[in-house]
């Protein structure tokens, strides 16, 4: 068991920069757009995002181990790309709702329950992401042929990659500026469109 934990943590630690890169276009524009100035508020936001990622890892580890045992690695990769596109859609919806609150469609979007716990949703959707470390972890998971071991492996993998999320808090001292918040919301629109386009390109 220690070996599995060490292996998962090692993979997370050695490839976490990719995860940082994958989370960045979603989490950073959102943090800039929300513009909470206090450390505590941003730490909570990051915590919620990580909780979403953790939930995604656990659900995925359970399913992938189970499917892996059943069908020996035939996982629907399109579903991973779909998750990326969905995170883009949520980001776009949030930013549009912030930029055009008077437009009916955007107002309806802001009041939608799915937009109330956005950091968790982002974490969940970005967690299931077809990035190279995640695919490497998936292959190992399938090879383990054991749901319990698979969960442990992904817990350790999550811990290793999550260390790379801490630099996100470095932006907190600048978050007071209204210009930066406005730029963050515009960046969210662009990031959302980018993620949707990328997801469609991969799926099609």
């Amino acid at each position, binding site marked *: 068991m220690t070996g599995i934990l060490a292996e998962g943590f090692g993979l997370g630690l050695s490839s976490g920069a990719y995860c940082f890169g*994958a989370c*960045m276009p979603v989490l950073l*524009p959102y943090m800039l757009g929300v513009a909470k100035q206090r450390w505590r508020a941003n730490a909570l936001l990051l915590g919620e995002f990580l909780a979403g990622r953790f939930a995604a890892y656990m659900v995925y580890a359970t399913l992938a181990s189970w499917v892996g045992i059943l069908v020996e690695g035939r996982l629907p990769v399109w579903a991973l790309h779909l998750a990326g596109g969905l995170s883009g859609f949520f980001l776009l919806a949030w930013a549009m709702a912030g930029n055009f609150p008077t437009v009916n469609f955007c107002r309806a979007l802001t009041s939608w329950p799915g937009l109330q716990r956005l950091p968790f949703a982002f974490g969940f959707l970005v967690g299931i992401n077809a990035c190279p470390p995640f695919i490497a972890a998936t292959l190992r998971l399938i090879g383990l042929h054991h749901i319990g071991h698979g969960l442990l492996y992904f817990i350790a993998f999550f811990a290793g990659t999550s260390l790379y999320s801490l630099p996100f808090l470095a932006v907190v001292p600048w978050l007071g500026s209204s210009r930066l918040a*406005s*730029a963050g919301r*515009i960046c969210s629109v662009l990031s959302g469109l*980018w993620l949707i386009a990328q997801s469609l390109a991969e799926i099609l």
Partner: protein
Amino acid sequence: MANSAGPAIFAVALAALVAAFSWPGVGNAWLAGATFLWAAFVGMAGFFILRSGKIARWRAIVFIAMAFGFLVYFKSASLGLTGRLWTTEKPQEVPYCHIAIASGILNYFYQQYLALKSGAWSRWGPLTLGFLWLALTLIIGRAWCSWVCFYGGLDESFSRIAKRPRWLYLGVPEKWRDLPAGILIFMILVSFSSLLPIFCLWVCPLKITTAFLDPNDAARKIQLAIFAVLGVATIVIIPILSKRRAFCGLICPFGAWQSFFGGLNPFRATIKKEDCTQCRLCLIVCPTFAISQEGLKKHEISPYCNLCGLCMDRCPRDCIDYTVFGRSLPGALSARTLFLFFALLAGGSVGALFMPQALSMAARSLARLFLS
């Protein structure tokens, strides 16, 4: 006569410094002649600006000449190297494209690290470019975009075609004014995330100065379509209709970068509250959307101001001028003279990297044409 003495001294000093910074040395008569010509041209622009007190016309002449000189020089180089004028099989390495800063910043830091580690920092390379940027930012700050940038003259030239704007658009909504900053942050993030220069690959229509990638697959066809639509709209059509520099004011990520770091530089365009009548002429003529209705009420100019001087020329009460951190300088040397000297010197020196070659190439071609 006495009225011209000051501008003449200014012009000679300016031309001498531009020539000194860019002198190619002995042995190349064409290039030496072209360098002299370029330095004299910049000095002459300085003379007329100072003598007339009007900034925008001569600034625009130098600025637009630089953009088209750059286009001629780079297109000729591209033709000579690849034999093709508009498209290329592989991405071309552009030696000094400041607009790619958002896309290439990580690569730049990595190159700086390598240069420092190997001890080769004294050679011309990324580290030196970094210092060049820092020096220019400290000297002229955000004025880069209206006095030095060798792309900016493209949309400026189209913005000057019509005498009056056919489409008088008084500003972008406040929440979209930071579009360039949003684009800059987005480009930094996605370039890091994908490890690709996304702005150069997907957005920048200024690749017209070098070459576009062969549109031989679906992705490259889409890229070319984006370049064409964005380029025609923001460099040609919107500038012609509105007399605004749409690409520089609303898209360019380097403009956002300079608007942030430009705060390091002391020069500002400042509105004198006591003299301003809120006539809105400055708002109407500002080519980069730097003066908004809300801002004007508070006598504020946004950090996106390029210090181009158009508002100063148009203000009927002369209540906008260059200042140092919002204040006039004591003594005989005004903030305006000091700024104009540094801005023209910076523009002239950067232009000297390619203008003499462009002029020399044009002169040789003309000579061949008439002598053959």
